[in-house]
Structures are given as structure tokens and as C-alpha cells.
């Protein structure tokens, strides 16, 4: 039984590789940039891209602002992030199933200021959203709060 399962899995893998190789690289978007002012960037795979309204964000992206810059992102679970200037926030982990609203989120505030309005992930599972700072981990039950790392 186990062997049959393995062979089936192998077949499936080969099939996926053969037919849908580009789909592997294309991770699902987890949110969209809604507001931008001044110097605002998305860092993705070592590349620093100018942030524009309407751009998608993906898991493992870092949103970054320079002096005077701000950036606002709404995630697919309806969580809303917005930052002040001189800020770095890594979107380290994000998982969300819209059919049952379950998910998990971990963001790292490395420096600067972040304001949060939590969404469906915390509504369905209080504590499933975490914000990590250099010294602490925030467990979020909801909804509106802000963090500053000096």
C-alpha cells in the first residue's frame, strides 16, 4: 500500500514537473500594496523593488521605507499593515485558507513603526498571528495595535 502510494506520488511529481514547472515558482500572493508615500520598497529574494500601489506581496518579502516613506498593505485574510518611515518588516510566514478562515502569520519588525488591524486569521484562531521584534514576540488576539522598534 505504502509502495503504491509512493509510486503514485512519484508519478504525480513527474507530471507536475513536466507540465507545470512555472507554477512551482509562482507562489500565491498574500496581499496587495494599497498606500505608498515617499521612499517605499519591497525586498524580494535580495532585490529591492520600488513599491507601487496595486503591487502584490508574497511570503518572505520584506516591506521597507526610507526617511519620510510609508507603506500600507492589506493581506488576503483582511489584516491591514501600515508603516511609518525608516521601517523594515519581514513577512516571514503567511498561510491562509479562505474556505474556513484558518491560517497563521508571522511578521518580523526589525526596525521602525508598524500599525496593525488584524483580520480573519485572528478572528478564527486567536493567537495564530504573531509579531516578532528583536526582543519580544507579540501574540495577537485582535484587533488594532502598533509596535515601534527604536
Amino acid at each position: 500500500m505504502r509502495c503504491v502510494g509512493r509510486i503514485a506520488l512519484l508519478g504525480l511529481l513527474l507530471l507536475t514537473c513536466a507540465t507545470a514547472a512555472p507554477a512551482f515558482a509562482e507562489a500565491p500572493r498574500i496581499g496587495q500594496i494599497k498606500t505608498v508615500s515617499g521612499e517605499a520598497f519591497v525586498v524580494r529574494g535580495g532585490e529591492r523593488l520600488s513599491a507601487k500601489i496595486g503591487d502584490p506581496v508574497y511570503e518572505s518579502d520584506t516591506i521597507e521605507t526610507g526617511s519620510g516613506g510609508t507603506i500600507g498593505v492589506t493581506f488576503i485574510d483582511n489584516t491591514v499593515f501600515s508603516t511609518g518611515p525608516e521601517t523594515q518588516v519581514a513577512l516571514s510566514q503567511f498561510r491562509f485558507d479562505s474556505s474556513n478562515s484558518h491560517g497563521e502569520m508571522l511578521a518580523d519588525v526589525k526596525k521602525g513603526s508598524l500599525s496593525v488591524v488584524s483580520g480573519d486569521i485572528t478572528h478564527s484562531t486567536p493567537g495564530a498571528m504573531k509579531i516578532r521584534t528583536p526582543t519580544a514576540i507579540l501574540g495577537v488576539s485582535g484587533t488594532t495595535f502598533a509596535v515601534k522598534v527604536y
Partner: protein
Amino acid sequence: MHRRVLVALALFTLTGCPRQELYVVLPNADGRPGAGKISVNEGNTRTVLDQPFASAETRGGQPAAIPPDPTEAQTVFKQAIAARPMLPAHFRLYFFLDTALLTPESGSTYRTVLENIKQRPAYEVEIVGYTDTLGSEAYNAGLSLERAAAIRDTLVWGGVDPKAITIAGRGERDPLVVTGDQVPEPQNRRVEITVR
């Protein structure tokens, strides 16, 4: 005696350190009364903040609650709060029995949906259709998707970008009002729309 001196000394030393981090619970942005709750965890220390403007700070690596200071919070987070996107909005539209035709009241809600979308510089729209339990499950799966598609098409006709819209049909699953099978229920004949 010794211990008390040590505690006093520790407190003095910590408050002498510069502030490293600040955490503040803000009044609910979605207009619901009161405030939410966060807990600040460092090692075995857990500081719970659950009142509007309840605050904690970290000095010397150690978080501790501090008195709420709304003026300071609004100053420190002024730009971050000003950058906040328009919050996601939720709508429900209802349909006549066995159709994808909106009830008259929902016709006016529909216009509110369209206006809400147009206020946003970048938007995403999710439309999920549902039915009551009259008819077969398979038939209702199709009808619920038809309802979602009908609203999508109307929005697109109204100028909304089709690429920003996703639709789904959940048939008679997830009723708003739980009924037995084969029961007509106006509240269950609906689409739910999220605009963000």
C-alpha cells in the same frame, strides 16, 4: 532587606536604559467599541495589554507595562496610522427564489458596493454565492456560482477590473439561517462580498 535594595537597583538601572521598543493597543479601527488584546512575551515574562492605549515598553531587553499615554502613542505612530489603507468592507446581497436576480433592497446595497470599490486606489473583490436548501445539492452548487457570476458581470459592466474579482459558489453549504432540507429561506439566497 538585601533583596529590596536589589529590586530597587534593578528598577533604577532598567528605567535608566534607553527605550528599545514600544507596544500600544489602539482603539478598534473597525469602529467596534473597546479595544483588542495583545500579549508581549519575552522569555517567561508575559505582559497582556487589553485596554485602549494600554502600553508596554522594553528597556534593557525587558518588556514591562507602562501607563497609557494616548498623546505620545498618537505622536509616535502618527505616520504609520495615516498610511493605513481603507479597511476591508463586507456586504451581503439577497436574491429572488431560484434566480440570480437581486431583491429591490439589495439593488441599493449593490450601488454601495460599487461606490466602495471605486473609492479605493487598488482593490480586490471576492464574491461568494450561496443558496437555500430547496432543490438538489448539485443544482444549488451551480445556482450559487451563477449568482456570484451575475454580480461579477454587473460590476465589470460598472467599470470594475475583472482581473481584481474572484468568484466562488458554495451552494447550500454555510447557510446564514440553518434549516432542514428543501426549505426556501430568503436569507440564505445570497452572495457575500468582500472588498479590500
